[in-house]
């Protein structure tokens, strides 16, 4: 890796000409009644060696703004601005040929989710080397050597091996590094990163942010797009908060985060999971009996190459009635398999699961069917578990026990009310709802058969932070009113801390630590838990 120069040194080399200047940028799609103004009157500038973060929730126009800078705002976009310059080029009316010279060579672009952003059918090396091939490095041998150097420089171990593999054979963190390597292949002066760490585990996110920080210190201008203020906190020099196509607040990162002037910025800050104080959880009943007991459960899967993969190894825990047990771990740690075993969707190879004292593995199938009603599930992406042609009413009715029609309808409306939706939502279809509303419907459906236990598998991971906060509050409120127990699975420690009374940390199929939430978070005993906690980006640290 290139030795990071100090920020002061980088600033000293700053020239008077900015890398990018945007004034009065407006981007609209469609025409007539369908016209949508995605970006309105946006202005900012970025100097060499500086990082500007555009922060906002989905639909705020931050991605469109970033894509406009490389001339790819999307189909049918109408772009206007009083000034739009990048690296001395006037972007307004730039010809296609000039755009292509800018893209990849002088401006690098990193998209979210490297699995979808790298061509899955081409080897990593070919993908990383593509900008080189497009911008004049003709010799294959030279490209191979440069790709090796690039992968090494972004911290990919065994670069030759990785270059010869396909994206799906790399872990999420390595893929994201490879994507960044491809974006900086031609040594661009400006790097645009659109949600570069979203969907990554905390420790991997930390590494990617550090990598971007190193590039910034080496003098690359960085435009960072994120929905999460905590992510940008320790890397951005300046922040522009976007909402509904407009910048509502802009300023040095420290000022904006410490002393937000706009109400929306304050709302965003309050919603950042790691900064939210734990909500007052309902006190568990005095001698709460266990709703679910998992005893020494082990689950192995046959690997395609003939070996076995241990997904869950000798895991034991109990969830008391009316409380929440949080399971935290990174991808591949076995937390989702554990959830599937509790749900009765997988049979453990060893150990047993007791639901209200009954061992599911010894019960006859018919009784398991009957018991299944008492344990329900809420997934990350409810859309894929809804039939898109069904109305919300039908989605929820399906989960209800057989009832007369009027009684069923009344129950649906009652459930909608419980999850904070209005009666008119009953007639909508899943695609007509926002992400937060869909998750509310999923919760209503889970509550429909009056379960005692709800397994929540990453229920807020796909939601914007402010919506996340609302859904978490709703879950806690429902627990208080209905006395349900939650088995709450998440890779996000901030989320886990807010809702759980006990927490369990999983790594490589095993439980490395479990205990009351405050004890684990404030006095972690296992080094892995400590590493997880340190990796959380912290707004307060600015």
């Amino acid at each position: 890796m290139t030795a990071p120069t100090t920020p002061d040194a980088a600033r000293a080399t700053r020239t008077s000409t900015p890398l990018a200047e945007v004034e009065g940028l407006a981007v609209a799609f469609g025409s007539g009644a369908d016209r949508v103004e995605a970006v309105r009157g946006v202005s900012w500038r970025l100097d060499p060696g500086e990082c500007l973060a555009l922060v906002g929730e989905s639909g705020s126009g931050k991605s469109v703004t970033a894509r406009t800078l490389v001339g790819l705002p999307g189909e049918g976009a109408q772009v206007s601005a009083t000034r739009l310059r990048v690296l001395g080029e006037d972007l307004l009316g730039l010809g296609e040929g000039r755009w292509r010279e800018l893209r990849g060579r002088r401006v690098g672009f990193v998209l979210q989710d490297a699995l979808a952003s790298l061509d899955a059918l081409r080897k990593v090396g070919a993908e990383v080397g593509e900008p080189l091939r497009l911008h004049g490095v003709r010799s294959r041998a030279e490209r191979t050597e440069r790709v090796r150097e690039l992968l090494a420089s972004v911290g990919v171990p065994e670069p030759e091996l990785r270059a010869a593999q396909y994206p799906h054979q790399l872990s999420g963190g390595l893929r994201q590094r490879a994507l960044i390597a491809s974006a900086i292949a031609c040594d661009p002066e400006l790097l645009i990163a659109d949600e570069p760490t979203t969907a990554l585990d905390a420790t991997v996110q930390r590494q990617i942010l550090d990598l971007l920080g190193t590039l910034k210190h080496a003098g690359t201008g960085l435009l960072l797009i994120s929905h999460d203020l905590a992510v940008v906190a320790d890397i951005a020099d300046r922040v522009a908060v976007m909402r509904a196509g407009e910048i509502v607040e802009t300023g040095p990162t420290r000022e904006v985060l410490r002393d937000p002037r706009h109400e929306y910025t304050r709302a965003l800050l309050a919603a950042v999971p790691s900064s939210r104080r734990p909500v007052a959880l309902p006190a568990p009943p005095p001698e709460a009996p266990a709703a679910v007991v998992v005893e020494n459960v082990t689950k192995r899967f046959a690997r395609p190459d003939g070996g076995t993969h241990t997904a869950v190894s000798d895991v034991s825990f109990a969830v008391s009635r009316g409380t929440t047990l949080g399971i935290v771990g990174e991808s591949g740690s076995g937390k989702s398999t554990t959830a599937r075993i509790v749900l009765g969707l997988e049979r453990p190879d060893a150990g047993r699961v007791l639901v209200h004292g009954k061992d599911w593995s010894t019960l006859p199938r018919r009784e398991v069917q009957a018991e299944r009603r008492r344990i329900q599930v809420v997934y990350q992406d409810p859309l894929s578990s809804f039939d898109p042609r069904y109305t919300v009413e039908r989605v929820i009715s399906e989960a209800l026990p057989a009832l007369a029609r009027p009684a069923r309808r009344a129950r649906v409306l009652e459930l909608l009310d419980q999850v904070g939706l209005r009666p008119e939502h009953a007639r909508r279809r899943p695609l007509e709802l926002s992400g937060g509303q869909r998750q509310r419907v999923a919760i209503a459906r889970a509550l429909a058969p009056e379960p005692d236990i709800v397994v929540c598998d990453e229920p807020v991971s796909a939601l914007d932070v402010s919506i996340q906060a609302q859904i978490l509050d709703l879950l806690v409120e429902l627990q208080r009113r209905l006395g349900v127990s939650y088995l709450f699975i998440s890779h996000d420690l901030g989320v886990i801390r807010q809702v759980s009374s006990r927490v369990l940390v999983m790594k490589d199929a095993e439980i490395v630590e479990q205990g009351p939430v405050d004890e684990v978070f404030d006095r972690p005993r296992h080094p892995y838990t400590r590493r997880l906690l340190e990796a959380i980006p912290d707004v307060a640290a600015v």
Partner: protein
Amino acid sequence: MTAVASSAPFAFIRHRLARHRLVRVIGVRLLTGVVVLWGAATLAFLAMHGVKGDPALAALGPDANPTPEVLRQIRLEYGLDQPWYVQYLTYLGRLAHGDLGQSYVLRTSVATAIGQQIGQTVQLALSAAIIAVVLAVVVGTLTAKRGPVIRSATSGIALVFASMPSFAVGLALLVAFSFTLHWFPVSGNQGLASLVLPSFAMALPIAAVLTQILRASLEDVLEQPFILTARTRGMRDAAVRVRHGLRHALIPLVTMTGFVVGGLLGGAVITETLFVRQGIGRLLINAVQAKDVPIVLGVVLFAALVHVVVNLIVDIVYTAIDPRIETA
């Protein structure tokens, strides 16, 4: 959860195992292929024995007027006096040795009769398949995600060809390019020129369907984030379509092509008749009319064999297109 990166020492082993998996896939395909052939043989046997008329009469040829004594002789000779299951097992046993039997009418072995005609039909089917796939790839790639005018124009043309039976397309081509323009011969098997019109008559309806399939899947692919990534690297639109888009869009096309090429033999019957060409199609029609059971069975088995082989090729092509099928 599945994104487990392999570490260096195991990469070699994983590669070997991936090879093994391909071998296993081919092995399974071959086994099911045998089952398919057996099924086809059985169906053909049942169908021909359900047909009215005396196979012994048929075996003597269309113009024969034999005495009962001769008929009895024939039945004995061909085993037609045996119970059906004996006939069936004898038939399967011969097939297993590669013996397709003797044609009643042509007085040659079935293998010889098919062998004489196969070249012409393979030429026709292959050129039709190549024309169809090339047309589909070129038109699909050029028109995916273009303006509404280009899209609806090509969709309209494709719809016309897709809904026209191949003999109608053939007639139209004959009228235009043979009778009016005199560019190509009306009929026959003489050289490349005589292959052009029948190939296009077979290819156009198929190309129309394949174009729509390829374009639809390419349009899905062009929405993917990795396409945007390629554009942000400074790649031309045409290169993005060909280098990144096409390979992803090919899987459904290959699947459909497998189906269609398997069916080209059936299509050849009509086209060969229309253009008065020698080939398997003509052989089959004549055999059916003359109740030449062994020939019909032979052609049916041959068609089934083509299906099995084509699907085997399709499976191998899949792994060539998508490395994840092998190494996932």
